[in-house]
């Protein structure tokens, strides 16, 4: 488990990370969402031990991480612009990392290279941006660390490759309990991969929740009530997050379980009602609007 407590980081006079506290549980995919400049990369660099926090703590499996070799053995950090040695090829990078990470699985690495059609002898400098990210991910996966920290790593990957990486993540999570932490400014990229999401804004955490919890506790209902009295009766006692009406068709977002909503609507006279699944984007819109932010401006632009 990675525990982040009251993490703060300044760059000169700029407060890049402001009192962030997040817990990243093992064997989950943790998504770190935020706009450019929200502090995602800085948080990841502090988690990976690149930066020392000005205040607060980061503990990886109860070990402080900054300049702690034992803690760093459990982490592999992939920066938004991964660095490879000048004139190096994939084999040379494998040689470097396998010398550092004791658990590095060389056989697996070369198998993955083949699967992803990456030539181990080709100079990395001639790789495309996406290929470099694939290579960085494969190196990280094959290092067999417990945690892999990816900073905007999925940006630039084509859907097939993304799917491939996700499959590998799923496999590694299943087999050895890998815990990926993925930072992205794009909510849609994380929707189908993350178990838990933390939303950063202006250096601070707006929210940090399990996706399932969020999905289970927010429902969207489309319905046409027979009368205003029915509507009042149906919504009485429910926490309505949002309500839109087009003609007689109401779209209502409420904080409640599906069962409770269905039970409530069954007791009133409606011409039509349906409980619809919410996208991650919609959940975020609802959750952040509650705390006074317009998520569209923050994430979706």
């Amino acid at each position, binding site marked *: 488990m990675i525990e982040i407590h009251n993490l703060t980081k300044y760059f000169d006079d700029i407060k890049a990370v402001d009192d962030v506290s997040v817990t990243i549980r093992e064997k989950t995919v943790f998504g770190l969402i935020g706009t450019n400049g929200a502090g995602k990369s800085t948080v990841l660099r502090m988690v990976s031990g690149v930066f*020392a926090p000005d205040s607060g703590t980061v503990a990886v499996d109860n070990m402080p991480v900054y300049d702690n070799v034992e803690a760093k053995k459990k982490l592999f950090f992939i920066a938004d612009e991964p*660095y490879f040695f000048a004139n190096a090829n994939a084999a040379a990078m494998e040689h470097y990392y396998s010398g550092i990470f*004791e658990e590095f699985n060389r056989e697996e690495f070369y198998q993955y290279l083949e699967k992803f059609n990456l030539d181990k002898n080709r100079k990395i400098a001639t790789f495309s941006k996406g290929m470099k990210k694939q290579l960085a991910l494969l190196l990280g996966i094959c290092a067999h660390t417990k945690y892999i920290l990816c900073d905007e790593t999925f940006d630039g990957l084509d859907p097939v490759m993304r799917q491939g990486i996700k499959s590998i993540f799923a496999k590694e999570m299943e087999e050895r309990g890998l815990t990926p932490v993925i930072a992205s400014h794009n909510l849609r990229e994380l929707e189908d991969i993350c178990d838990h999401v933390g939303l950063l804004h202006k250096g601070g955490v707006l929210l940090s929740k399990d996706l399932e919890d969020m999905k289970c506790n927010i429902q969207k209902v489309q319905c046409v009530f027979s009368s205003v009295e029915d509507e009042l009766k149906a919504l009485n006692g429910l926490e309505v997050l949002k309500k839109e009406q087009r003609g007689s068709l109401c779209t209502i977002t409420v904080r409640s379980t599906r069962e409770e909503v269905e039970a409530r609507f069954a007791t009133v006279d409606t011409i039509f009602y349906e409980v619809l699944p919410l996208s991650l984007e919609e959940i975020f819109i609802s959750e952040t609007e509650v705390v006074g932010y317009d998520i569209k401006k923050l994430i979706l632009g």
Partner: protein
Amino acid sequence: MTSRNSFWGSCRENHKRRIWVWIVAVLSQLLIYGGVTMIYLSRIKGFYAEGTYRSLAEFKQAMYQAARDAIGFSDNLYPVIMLLAALIALQGFSYLYDRRKVDVYHSVPVSKNRRFAVVYVNGLMIYLVSNLLGLILGMAIAASQGAVNGEVMAEAWLAFVWNLAFFLAYYHLMILAVMLTGNRFVTICVFLVFTLYEIIAYMLIGNLKAVFFKTYSGYFVYQRAKLSPLRDYTSYIWQLKNVENAAEAARIAMPLAAKWIGIALVVLAVAWFAYRKRPSETAGKAIAYRFLEPLLKVAVAVASAFLIGQLVYDTSYQNEPLLVLGMLLGGLIVCAAMEVVYDFDIRSLFKHLLSSGVALAGILAIFCSFKWDLFGYDSYIPAQNKIESIAIDADGYYDSYWDENWRYLDEAEYKKENMFLTDAEPVLALAQKAGQTDTEEMSENRTVQILYRLKSGRQVDRRIQVDYDDPETEALLNRIFQTDAFKMGTFQAITDETSYDHVAAVNYSNGAAIGIIPGEDAKKLRDAWVKDMEQFDFTLVRHNRPCGMITMGYGAEADYMSRQYYVYDSFENTINFLKKREAYYPVELDAADIDSVTVGCYHNELQNPYAGDPGYNLYRRAAEAEAVDTYVDYTVRETFYEEEQIAQILPHIYPSYIDAPWGRYGGAAEAVEDQNNYSLEIVFKKDSAYPYDRGSYYFNYCFRNGEVPDFVAEATAYTGEAE
């Protein structure tokens, strides 16, 4: 097999990233040792083929010396070593400048200490291996040509250690520069500041003292950088190149090497501390530590301002307002430039005006402290009870000084080591009098250098101007000149008890005749002269010309050195000794021995008609600027053959060959007018029995001042037709 995650495994991995540095280091060392050895030896062989050497032994000696110059203490090496030290350190630690590299290196499970040690040790190995390869190649080339013996080998290894210490000093300095900065350009600038700042600071302070302080000397105590290995290296390399043997080289080089290693260790400790504390996010920034920015800015701006000011001052004929303007503008420009460099943004020109203001205030404060002597430099005279001893050098005499190995010594160095005046009172009185007297009012203004050795251990040197014609000054100088301490510190002949064994020839000359004294009598003659020197004082030398001069010439083992002893009419012991050996000849000549006297009058009064006028210097400078040749030869010569005329001339002349120590010179124009205006050439009769030096056709003499006979003046008067 070494584990890949072990220290040496990490070193091996790190070497892969430094291949080009390896190539540069090895190639440069092979070239500098191998190439230079070949060139030096080839040159000696060429000289031998041309017959420059008189014997095979001499040729062999020259070959050994050439090998020593190439692979031993060589002045070719230090720029290469400095460059390599800087390059190796910069390349090794420059990953700290790149955020992408920092992301990798600081996130992987390798401790900061391990990474530092790996990069550091690898850099050291690059130097050591390349330097050893070069040295071995140089030795092999020298050995193949028979230019290696035990001394050459010993010196080569000593030089290896000395160069290693020098490398470490600059290797560590560059590591420190890397740790304090965030990009290559700024690192190189900071490295140059570290390397040169102390040297430049001492130079600037010396220049400022020379410009603004009347009493600034630098004669006995030359203030120069104390912590700069570069200054040490360049100062001592010539001495080391010319040592007799490896033991002597070790005596000079090893203490310096130990000092450099000490400095290097301190610098390394600071660099390591800075590395440990350096935030990773400073990669790419100009300076890694914010608090250093204003400090560095002020330090560089102040030094640069004075450098610029000095340049303006020197090129503007010492224009002081321009000096101040140059300094302030220079300081301002450097402050602005450093802000731009700090931010890599031209709009930052006038950021942090507070530190710029501090820099300008510092510049002005330093200038004012010199200009108005705020710390009382010129008025400083130590209290008598605080003085341990004093050494002085009064302008007017120069002796030859050498050490036990027959190597010439600097005059100031000799006096500093050998003159210990304990009666400070006359020296302090002279200093006080000098402080109260305007040099313009002096009849003959001469310089006296003073070294005060204080009881605290501090040494202070000052230069004062005194009037040799002032009776009070003469009395004070007499008190100083009469002391044994002054004589022993001025005339090495008095203290030198051993070099007489090497005297090959002794002669006495009155300017024309030469008397020969056997070499075995050298010691007795010197003893007689030392006895006569008991009467030595300032009045004697100021008011009396020497009647002759003894020259002791040393043999080959003493490198054919020679020393002169001035003899005065009152030196009875010396003169009697010479007379007994029939080697004494009075200074006055007999007209019967002389064939002719040719008198030349330069007519200086016509040469510089405006000399003495206020506008003369302006006129002369303008003429020089326009390259106008203002010289007209007004010389009139007349040769006198009549014995009667010659007899009238001879009592008024003295030999030019014999100087008059502490006598008059150009400072008092009227006193040397005739000496400067007339020349005399005396030709002896060929059949004369007078033992004049037969190797010379004529002998140069001068008129004593004011004693030119009227008939000579008339005969050489200018009539409008110069020769």
